[in-house]
């Protein structure tokens, strides 16, 4: 593999060095009696919904991480380790998964019965912290998460000099990596992007040659979409001006996935300008589909307890939470959640198989898209 170099590298290095210099200055300042790193607050209290742009944004609150504060000292130390490792990766032209990063940095601290990182749950948030503190993203820091999600469709990508024809990827498709910014789209004959929640339904569509028949780019999210998947959807829309349709189960979790793709997530609110796709619309499932396609007998009961009998818990709780999101207040969405709560049922994408295996590809999706029956 050639060296991994990104356009952003110089800028990222500069940001990291500046962080180092700030600490250095405090060390050389005789009057300074503590070490501090300023970072934007990433907790929910500092997450705002920008109605005009249709995305979550981080507010202006910042917090100061202090080394001589016992509850912050360990994280402070860890941040310096991750930052200096990021600099090394960029300079070497290599990348590392966040799991590799964890193993690279983990060791016993001299003189203590303590490791630099006890597990990956400790190093992952430090990476996010460093992203926020330096105003970078992990991909720019040459770090990436595990690969998740796949793509099929009439699209030719140039990936670091290699040509990938996504129409000829067999039954497994193009595995979507964590870093996609460097992709160049050489050819595109697609009319739209279809993001599908479950891998099982992706397999069904591919078997029916849906991407070929309908000129669609199919992206399988495999549940909650990874950062790479979200970024890829974002640039497919941004660079190729393709409409994005999302296809999930009609349940609180499915609609939450849609909300993340569309507006961004709380924990990555600082990056929703590059991860969220506000124009994405939901093609299905909807609660009305139950009536429309006669799916009553294939609905599933929601898990947990409703509000009026000791709840809400589990599905009922999540439905309540998503229903209350500021960006889910339009009547059409409120109606979905209300129906869900009233009926106490959910319906999966695969329930459409009750109408025949090819029904979803032959009838359901083409009809809905043709008639522009979307939730937005």
């Amino acid at each position: 593999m050639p060296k991994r170099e990104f356009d952003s590298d110089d800028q990222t290095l500069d940001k990291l060095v500046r962080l180092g210099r700030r600490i250095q200055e405090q060390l050389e300042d005789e009057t300074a009696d503590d070490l501090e790193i300023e970072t934007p607050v990433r907790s929910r209290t500092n997450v705002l919904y920008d109605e005009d742009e249709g995305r979550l944004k981080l507010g202006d609150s910042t917090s100061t991480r202090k080394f001589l504060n016992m509850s912050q000292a360990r994280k402070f130390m860890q941040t310096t380790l991750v930052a200096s490792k990021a600099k090394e990766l960029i300079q070497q032209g290599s990348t590392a998964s966040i799991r590799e990063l964890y193993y690279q940095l983990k060791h016993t601290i001299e003189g203590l019965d303590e490791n630099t990182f006890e597990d990956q749950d400790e190093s992952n948030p430090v990476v996010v912290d460093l992203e926020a503190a330096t105003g970078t993203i992990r991909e720019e820091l040459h770090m990436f998460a595990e690969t998740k999600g796949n793509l099929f469709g009439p699209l030719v990508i140039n990936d670091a000099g290699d040509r990938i024809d996504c129409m000829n990827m067999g039954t497994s498709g193009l595995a979507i990596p964590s870093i996609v910014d460097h992709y160049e789209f050489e050819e595109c004959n697609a009319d739209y992007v279809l993001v599908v929640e479950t891998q099982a339904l992706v397999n069904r569509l591919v078997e029916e040659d849906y991407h070929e028949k309908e000129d669609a780019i199919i992206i399988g999210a495999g549940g909650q979409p990874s950062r790479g998947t979200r970024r890829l959807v974002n640039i497919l829309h941004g660079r190729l001006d393709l409409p994005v349709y999302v296809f999930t189960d009609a349940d609180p979790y499915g609609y939450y996935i849609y909300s993340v793709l569309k507006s961004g997530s709380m924990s990555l609110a600082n990056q929703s300008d590059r991860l969220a796709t506000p124009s994405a619309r939901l093609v299905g499932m909807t609660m009305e589909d139950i009536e429309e396609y006669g799916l009553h007998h294939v609905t599933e009961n929601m898990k947990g307890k409703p509000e009026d009998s000791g709840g809400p818990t589990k599905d009922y709780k999540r439905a309540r939470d998503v229903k209350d999101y500021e960006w889910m207040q339009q009547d059409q969405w409120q109606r979905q959640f209300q129906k869900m709560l009233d009926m106490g049922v959910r319906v999966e994408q695969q329930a459409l198989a009750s109408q025949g295996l090819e029904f979803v590809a032959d009838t359901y999706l083409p009809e809905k898209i043709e008639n522009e029956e979307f939730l937005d």
Partner: protein
Amino acid sequence: MEVEEQEGEDHREISVAEFFEKNKHLLGFENPQKSIITVVKEAVDNSLDACEQDDIIPEVQVLIDEVGDQKCRVELRDNAIGMDAETVPKVFGKLLYGSKFHKLQQSRGQQGIGISASAMYAQLTTGEPVTVYSKEEGEPCNRFVVRMDTEANEPEIIEQEEVDPEGDEFPGDQDYYFDHGTSIEMTVEAKYTRGHHSVKNYLKHTAIMNPYARIVLREPDGNKIEYPRVANELPEKPREIKPHLHGVELGVVMRMIENSDARTVSSFLQQEFTRVGRKSAVNICEEAEIDDGRRPNTLEKDEVETLLNAADRTNLQNPPTDCLSPAGEDLLLKGLEKELNPEFTTAVTRKPAVYGGNPFQVEVGLAWGGDIADEGSFEELRYANKVPLLYKKSSCVTTKAIEGVDWSRYNISQSGSRPQGPLYISIHIASVWVPFTSEGKEAVANYDDIRKEMKLALQEAGRKLGRYIKRQERKEIQEEKKRKLTSYATEMGDAIAELAGDGDSEEYETEIKRMVQKDYDPEGLK
């Protein structure tokens, strides 16, 4: 406790043996485990009292051998002033003979029934007489073998001789030679045990409260334990006082009338009681509607009762308190420190107070950490007139007082209302008349005035301990912080130099450590 009823028409003498048998449980001889503790307790209490009476720094030795199934030979030695040949047989051969009975002075022996009961017990359980050696300074040593005539309650001397203290017959080891003192040997039915209710624990408790005494115990297996002396000053000797009208009992007054040479009720009250002047005496008599000029011995029992009730309604000054002899904070601390080797001790001696006409004084000592094991709940050391109380803890006022304190305020965790942690709490009540819950004299009654004093003392000591624990905790946190952050500095020096692109990582490491050191504040002043 009285052998015979003093009044009443149909009084009859009961035999001493019968009396003993009936009152075994009150005397502390209800079972072989407890009996050996009682034998040791009576002797040790007597010895300490006797030594203090004559300003002698006490030396007490307890030697116990097993001589058969549930049978022990006990040898008890002290260095008190000793007794002459006249006194020895009476003390050991006549139940309830003693100088302390009915005397209003704070003493240990007031609690028990004297060594003669032990001798009685020995005689009844093993049939063997008691051997006593006693020597006064500059006098020869007398050896007696005494038994009790249980019909007549009179001593019966079996053998008597003068022995050469340095000769072979004088008891004991090489390390024992006193110019004066007493040694008692008796064989009793007994079971030597270990644990909370044991001779060893009794002596340990005694040693804590009496750190000016040297006490040696030789257990049946030959194991020798020394409780060393760590103070060479005796506490202030208690003064004898006359009773106070507000605390005196009817029977006692009746006896006082019999023994008094006062010619009028008024002068009887003034002579025999504390804090009664001419004016008070007249007031009391007026209140009782009794002629203050009557001869005291013409008063009927119900008239005396009327008189006492009248006295209760009359304002009298509180009794003087120099009759009390507390251990004092210094000795409390020394005792706890030498036997427990704790990390922290504190002690509080309250000012004397009065309950129902009786002066009393409360002392509290707390010992924390160090060699004290953290076994969950705290350990309690209870004392009445410097004598350890081992039994009936739950009904004792000390326990109620401890449970009435909110220990969590002093950074001590609590389970229910009981403090937890490596903690010893000693509570001492000194009084001429300690109110026990029962004749067995094993627990102090839960009187409001006493409990309140104990609680105040515990709280005062608790506050001091609480401050110490807080300081320690803060110190530990600071130590831990310094240790961690210093180690982090090693990690960060490299990382920062690397990140900034220049600079000396070792210099940064040193600089971070300097910041950590500057921040370190073990006293928590910041």
